[in-house]
């Protein structure tokens, strides 16, 4: 399955893009992250949260959307 991945804030400086797609056949978010860590090794050293369907999710969550969003620490206001 093609999954769209969106990146925000400082993460876009690691990926050099605001979004990309990866081909994914696993079940869990954690598996998806493993693929991203291979593609962008320095992502491992960054603090970020993962959102699916506009909700923050953990690695143990099952993927149930074709869009996943990586969010660095919030700094609004």
């Amino acid at each position, binding site marked *: 399955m093609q999954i769209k991945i*969106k990146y*925000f*804030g*400082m993460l876009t400086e690691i990926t050099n893009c605001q979004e990309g797609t990866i081909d994914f056949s696993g079940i869990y978010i954690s598996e998806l992250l493993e693929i991203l860590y291979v593609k962008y090794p320095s992502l491992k050293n960054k603090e970020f949260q993962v*959102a699916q*369907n*506009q909700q923050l999710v953990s690695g143990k969550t099952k993927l149930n*959307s074709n869009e996943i*969003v990586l*969010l*660095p*620490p*919030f*700094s*609004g*206001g």
Partner: protein
Amino acid sequence: MSDKKTKNVFIQGAISSEFIGDSIAKHQTKTSIGAHNIFLGQVRADVVNNKRVSAIEYTAYEDMANAKFQEIRKAAFEKFELTCMHIYHSLGMVNAGEICLFVFVSSPHRKTVFEALEFIVEDIKAHVPVFGKEIFEDNSHQWKVNN
């Protein structure tokens, strides 16, 4: 994924003092209000390693942010006896000295607005996916961190 219509909280660029004044004026017909409390976030010209912040460029995961703002609104109305509440946040460039966040709560009584405003502002800072890029005068940058 939510079907709820969510209001757009974002404004392109700085929030002007005229906009804030107009917003205050619009409440003069609501005569059950006894107290307003307004929080304004202003971009600070912080100095880091001898370089001065000249602006912050805000980006947001807008769909999720607007949904979060809506959740915060809902929670605040449930928790506090508020007559009305308005939240606006800047996107894009906001220069040092300009306003990037405007939170406005109104109630019959003052104790309510004090409690509600702090609750709402802290919730925004902690839970809304907005990202500030601090631009220095030499065009270098660093990513803002809230505390």
